[in-house]
Each structure stands twice: as structure tokens, then as C-alpha cells.
């Protein structure tokens, strides 16, 4: 669904590289040319992208868990089918993104192992629990909404395979977002209990969603090279502002209150929001969010308990290849 606060400037690596090649590379990026897997690229560009794309892929996969939590309890068969289809899409996004990351030279297995070992991150948002059905609507509306804000510019990212993956992902993501909003509309037009459920979900998700855009620009240490390399096209705060401006009227339409009493609208139309609790953000990224342990435990359990299945598939494939070779030799 989403990735955040990535990439470091690998200055040491860059210094070792051919200055001429680096200049040529930068000229291509500046000319809005797409960089493809076989092209020369700075080692730091490769590392940054591997990290960003794989973290994005991990986020899709871990992101299946909070919503998957409600598949067996969805209130109607239509909602159940739609949620199942959505979570299946997330898995597909994970697969596209691992494939895009692999074009940079790391295997999916290595990347997944890094995530399971806690060395690679995934989006902070998936460390929050889904407590009621309204959370499923809110995730579609806000979390997918925030993801789209971030991913639309990535469709023009300098690295071709990532940009193309984003084009496919964004199509499905905007469908999910509308589906989520439709759940919210239904709840807000429903009984008092349903409206209260929707308001409570918004109260719990609002701030964590704003944190999805990463630290404030003043404190964001990674943006310089990413901007220069056209991996990133807007700053965290720019995207966050865009998201808030788009979301406030949607909340008003629903008749819901955004849990920020200090919010005001400027003369230029922008909504000014209150200070975000960056301590909470840091804690969640450090592994201390409400569900970090559960999410990692669930992914590790699936991986470990599935080991014998993957071994069986590999063993069967090897046997079959051997038989085919033997037959061909006869």
C-alpha cells in the first residue's frame, strides 16, 4: 500500500564511482528519461531504490493483516467478497513490487528475510489494530487515500520498473479508496450506532494516517538525493497538506468531525492542522506500536509453518526435471 521515510545518501559509494558516468546518469534523469535495469546507475541509487521498493512491497504484504482481520466477519456477502478481492489485490501489489525490486539485483527471498529479521521496515500505519467494521471503511478511505497521494507522483519516478508498477497499483488503489469511502457513506447514513462507529474509527486513524507521509520536511534527512534522482517529486509536508485539503471536505460530507479541534482554514483555502505527535511515530517505527509484535509474529509464523510446503514444491520440481532429463536421454 505504501512506503515511507526511506533512503539514505550513500555518499561513500558515490565518491568511488566514475564521475563521467554519474554526470551522464544525472543528465538522463534531468531529461526525464526512464532508467532501466540494464542501464548504469550509481550504487547509491540502486541501494536507495532497492530499499524503497522492497519496503513498499513489505507494506503491501503486512498491510493484508489488519484488513484480513475482518474478512471472516464482514457484515454482508457483498462486503465480504469486496474485502477479499481487495486484500488479494494487495498481495498482487506485493508481487509486482518484489519483481520490480528484483530488477535491481536482490532476490525476493533476501528482501523478505530482511523484513522477517526486522532489518527492513514497512509502513507504520499497519501497526494499528482494526477494532470495528468501520475501521475497514476508514482504511480504504484514508490509508488508501494517503497511499494514492504518495504513489501518483511515483508513476513518474525515474526508475522505469517502479514507475510502471505504480501505474498498475494506482488503478486498483483508487478503486479500493472509493470502496472504503462507500462503506463510510453507508455507515454515516445508517443508525446512531453505525455513525458512532464511523466517528470512533476516524478518531483512531486520523493521526496515524497523517504520519504515513513521514517526518516533517525540516527533519527529513533523506530527501535531497531522492529529489535530485527524481525518485521523490514532492516533499512529505507538501503531500500531507494535499491530503488534508482533499480529505476535510470528504469528512464534512460524511458529517464526521476530524479529531483536531485546532484545525483552521487559511485564506488561500489550505487547512492548517495541529502538531503531529512525532514521539508516537518514532515509537511505532522503533517497533513499539500497538500491533508491531503481532504483525511480525503473524508473518514469521506463515513463513515458518509454510517452509515444508515450499520445500515440497522445490523437491518435486527437482524430481520432475530429473525425470524429464532421464527421459530425453533414452
Amino acid at each position, binding site marked *: 500500500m505504501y512506503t515511507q521515510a526511506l533512503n539514505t545518501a550513500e555518499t561513500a559509494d558515490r565518491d568511488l564511482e566514475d564521475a563521467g558516468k554519474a554526470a551522464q546518469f544525472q543528465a538522463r534523469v534531468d531529461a526525464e528519461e526512464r532508467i532501466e535495469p540494464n542501464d548504469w546507475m550509481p550504487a547509491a541509487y540502486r541501494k536507495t531504490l532497492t530499499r524503497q521498493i522492497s519496503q513498499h512491497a513489505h507494506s503491501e*504484504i503486512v498491510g*493484508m*493483516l489488519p484488513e*484480513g482481520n475482518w*474478512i*471472516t*466477519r*464482514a*457484515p*454482508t*456477502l*457483498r*462486503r*465480504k*467478497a469486496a474485502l*477479499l*478481492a481487495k*486484500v*488479494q489485490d494487495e*498481495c*498482487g501489489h*506485493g*508481487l509486482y513490487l*518484489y519483481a520490480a525490486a528484483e530488477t535491481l539485483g536482490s532476490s525476493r527471498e533476501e528482501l523478505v528475510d530482511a523484513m522477517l529479521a526486522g532489518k527492513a521496515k514497512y509502513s507504520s500505519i499497519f501497526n494499528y489494530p482494526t477494532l470495528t*467494521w468501520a475501521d475497514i471503511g476508514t482504511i480504504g478511505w484514508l490509508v488508501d487515500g494517503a497511499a494514492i497521494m504518495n504513489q501518483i507522483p511515483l508513476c513518474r519516478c525515474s526508475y522505469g520498473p517502479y514507475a510502471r508498477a505504480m501505474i498498475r497499483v494506482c488503478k486498483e488503489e483508487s478503486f479500493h479508496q472509493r470502496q472504503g469511502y462507500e*462503506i463510510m457513506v*453507508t*455507515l454515516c*447514513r*445508517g*443508525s446512531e*450506532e*453505525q455513525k458512532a462507529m464511523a466517528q470512533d474509527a476516524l478518531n483512531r486513524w486520523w493521526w496515524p494516517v497523517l504520519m504515513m507521509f513521514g517526518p516533517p520536511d525540516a527533519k527529513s534527512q533523506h530527501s535531497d538525493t531522492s529529489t535530485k534522482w527524481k525518485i521523490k517529486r514532492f516533499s512529505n509536508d507538501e503531500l500531507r497538506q494535499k491530503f488534508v485539503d482533499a480529505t476535510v471536505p470528504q469528512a464534512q460530507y460524511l458529517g464526521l468531525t476530524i479529531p483536531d479541534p485546532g484545525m483552521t482554514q487559511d485564506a488561500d483555502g489550505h487547512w492548517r492542522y495541529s502538531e503531529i505527535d512525532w514521539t508516537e511515530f518514532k515509537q511505532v517505527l522503533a517497533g513499539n506500536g500497538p500491533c508491531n509484535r503481532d504483525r511480525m509474529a*503473524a508473518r514469521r*509464523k*506463515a513463513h515458518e*509453518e*509454510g*517452509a*515444508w*510446503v*515450499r*520445500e*515440497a*514444491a522445490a*523437491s*518435486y520440481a527437482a*524430481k520432475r526435471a530429473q525425470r524429464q532429463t532421464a527421459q530425453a536421454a533414452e
Partner: protein
Amino acid sequence: MVVANIQVSETPLVLYALRRADDALILGHRLSEWCGHAPMLEEDMALSNIALDLIGQARELYTFAAKVEGRDNDEDKLAYLRDVRQYLNLLLVEQPNGDFAQTLVRQFFYSAFADLYWRAMMNSRDGTLAAIAAKSEKESAYHLRHASEWIIRLGDGTEESHTRTQAAIDHLWAFTGEMFAVDDGERALIHAGIAVDPASLRGRWLATLSDVTREATLALPQNDWMQQGGRAGRHSEHLGHLLSELQSLQRTFPGLTW
């Protein structure tokens, strides 16, 4: 506000459609429990995909049952407001997922039947059932292919996968007989050309099972004693838990739009 179970007019055709709808819903529900927890991402997608097909089939069959019944029931009332004694699915499909082998053996036994069943039902004299069958047959052919390939991979994979898969076959075998049983109401529908006689499918079902298990180096059990009860609402202890999860929101907040 309606909290209680709904009443269903149990004519033979309504019962017939409900039984097939319940099979599809309960199996789809079981498969959906794997979502996010499968051994590999590709299987996460495949199992969700099959679950989605089955839930789609259930929706069509419930809608058909409600229409035949002609009361104010609909797919959601039929799914969410009947209790364990009113559910009519096969005992096979309510069995817990267990390990991946148990899930795939359950899927294989059911899909090998469903594929033949839906193909035969395309000739039903009931136009709606024939149309549902035409769509479901395409899906069940895919499900059978997926399950068969996994049975072969697991059976002829490692010693561990072979042992687990054989254990799953031995465990689930007693629940397969119910697929071929009919009661008097169904007998009348078979005579009318609306339903197919499942007994007529058993030979080909067994042939599929024999072919696949032979290639997988697995054996079918000799024991032919068969557990029955699901079709009459006498279930295992597993179904009540499944329904309490599936129905929790509708039971807590009855009569609302979601």
C-alpha cells in the same frame, strides 16, 4: 429489529439450492481464513481467489433460493440469520483448515466433485441453475487443476509433505460419502431433470482421485464407512464457531444496511 433466526420455506428446490449455497459459502469462508497466512504469496492469492469464486457461487445460489422461496429473505438473511441446525452444507467443507495439506486435500475432494457436478448441472431444466452451473463450472475446473497439482507436488515432494498429505486424505475420507447421498426431495428433482443424480458422478470422481493420488504416490483409504449429517443440519462441532464469527455483526446490530 429482527434478532432471531429467519424461517425458511423448505420446499425441495429451496433446500436443494441452500445445500449447494452453504457448501460454497462455508468452504469459501474456510479458504478466506488463509488470507495473509499462506506458505507463499502466490498461494495466498490463489486461495483467496478460490474463496472469492466460491463466495460468488454462494451469493448466486442464495439469491436463487430466496427467489424460489418468494418470501422476504435474501442472500444476507440466508447466510447471516440461520443457525447451525439450519445450515445444510457437507461436513467436508466445514472441517478446519489444519495444515496446508489438509486444506488442499479438502479442496481436492470437493473440487473433483464440484467440477463434474457443475458440468452436469449445465443441462438442468431450471434455466437459472443451468446458468449458475455454466459459470461455476469454469471456476471449478480451475480449482480442480490447482488442487490436483498441489496433491501431486505434496505427495511426491518430500517425506514430510508425503506423510502430511496421506494423513489428511485418511482424515477427511469419511466425509466424502455425503456428496453422493440424496433424500426423497432431491430424488424428485432428479426425476424432473432439475438436479443431477450425484451417484452417477461417483465413478468419474473416483477415477480422478485415483489418477491424481497414484501420480502423487499416495493411496486412497480402504475404509468405506462414511459420516453423514450435514445435509440435515447435524454438523460437527466446528460449524457453530465458524458461524458465530461469520454472523457476529449481523447478530449484534440486526436489521441494518452495511
